[in-house]
């Protein structure tokens, strides 16, 4: 509730709404770029940005000596869900929904130690492999709202290490424990998961405490199986495992994979990735 109060307060000012509109048009702006055309002092804009950051409507990231500002639309979507869509429906329906939500038994994922996801893609195995490994592809569909597209820098040979590169924010995640475990083009690829370095955490909006807790967990691994399913269709299975029970990292990746794989499928089948939500 306190968070929502902060969001409403942040949105109540027209100048702050204008700043959000600017970031919506073009994300990743410096303070200087945001000040341009606002008709306000640099100090005023900076104060407004502080309020927006407090409300988590804006996230920042350092790129060299510059500080870039990024829009986080999630709190606004939460408001729309809670305060707008909710009132579209009849009160009776809203109460029925509430009843359903309260009665529904939540799925208990706490003992899971793996996330498994299967999809079918109308593309040749070589293309799916390319989609998973080639930066020209990964940068287009494997994206984060703040850090942008990801690239894996490696020769993809079994035993080789890999770096994770986020060009948009000038971040490289390097660790000798980031290793290619299996590489059987175009059938099976497996690698250990990347380290949650302090720089990675900062670029993705996680605080150091969370990142440290994630680093304390055993290193997980991901495996991709590419099987021909007939008629030029590939069955792609992703198994991300090696987690201890009640893993916080698993909770995070479980939400991420469907979006990444759905966007890969759309890119391979239509030539364009899913628009970033």
């Amino acid at each position, binding site marked *: 509730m306190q968070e929502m109060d902060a969001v409403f307060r942040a949105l109540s000012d027209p100048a702050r709404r204008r700043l959000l509109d600017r970031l919506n048009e073009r994300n990743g702006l410096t303070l200087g770029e945001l000040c341009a055309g606002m008709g306000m002092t640099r100090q005023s804009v900076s104060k407004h940005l502080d309020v927006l950051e407090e409300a988590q409507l804006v996230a920042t990231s350092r790129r060299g000596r510059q500080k870039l500002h990024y829009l986080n639309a999630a709190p606004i979507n939460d408001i729309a869900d809670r305060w707008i869509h909710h009132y579209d*429906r009849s009160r009776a*329906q809203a109460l029925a*929904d509430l009843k*359903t939500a309260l009665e529904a038994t939540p*799925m*208990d*994922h706490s003992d*899971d130690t793996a996330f*498994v*996801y*299967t*999809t*079918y*893609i*109308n593309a040749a195995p070589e293309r799916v492999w390319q989609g998973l490994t080639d930066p020209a592809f990964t940068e287009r569909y494997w994206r984060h709202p703040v850090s942008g597209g990801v690239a894996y820098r490696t020769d993809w040979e079994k035993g080789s290490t890999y770096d994770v590169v986020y060009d948009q924010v000038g971040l490289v995640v390097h660790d000798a424990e980031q290793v290619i475990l299996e590489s059987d083009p175009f059938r099976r690829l497996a690698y250990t998961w990347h380290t949650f370095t302090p720089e990675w955490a900062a670029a993705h909006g996680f605080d150091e405490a969370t990142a440290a807790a994630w680093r304390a967990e055993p290193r997980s691994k991901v495996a991709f199986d590419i099987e021909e399913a*007939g*008629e*030029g*269709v590939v069955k792609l299975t992703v198994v991300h495992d090696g987690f201890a029970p009640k893993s916080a990292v698993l909770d995070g990746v479980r939400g991420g994979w*469907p*979006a990444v794989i*759905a*966007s890969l*499928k*759309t890119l391979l*089948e*239509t030539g364009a990735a*899913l*628009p*970033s*939500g």
Partner: protein
Amino acid sequence: MDDTSFTYTTYVAAVPDRVWQGLTDPDLTRRFWRHRTMGGKSFPSEWKKGSRWDLVHEDVGLVVSDPEQVILEADPPRRLSYTWHTFTPEWAALAGLSEETAAAWCAGPRSKVAYELEERGRSVTRLTVTHDGFAPGGPVLPAISEGWPAVLSGLKTLLETGAPLP
């Protein structure tokens, strides 16, 4: 993974109304919701809470109709839920199940499916399917767990490219 339920999330480059159509309109379902031996399916129904729904496989002249096949919730285009169809002897025969397997399938409780459709940004729908109510250790959950990714991949391809998966 819960041993009484299956859940799957995908993102489709289409507005929720269109995804809802994909799940309910016979002209669409027939094209992507296909069984190996029984061909395309359609689900004639009023799609209102309390309505019945039938399972129709035109290609093999099969209709599965049961008053227990009901729409539990219908809030287009956001949420749809219904009880699963009966595994009638005719259905089991055409699906290629042995009598023994069919008996095991019929022995369990009637499952139900729920679809959540949420618009994410410009014309992208996050679709979450939860199929639950299974008896733990029964044979139906593994079978539908195999089936759903293929069905939902087919829906996505049809809506995004205009043609079903080959």
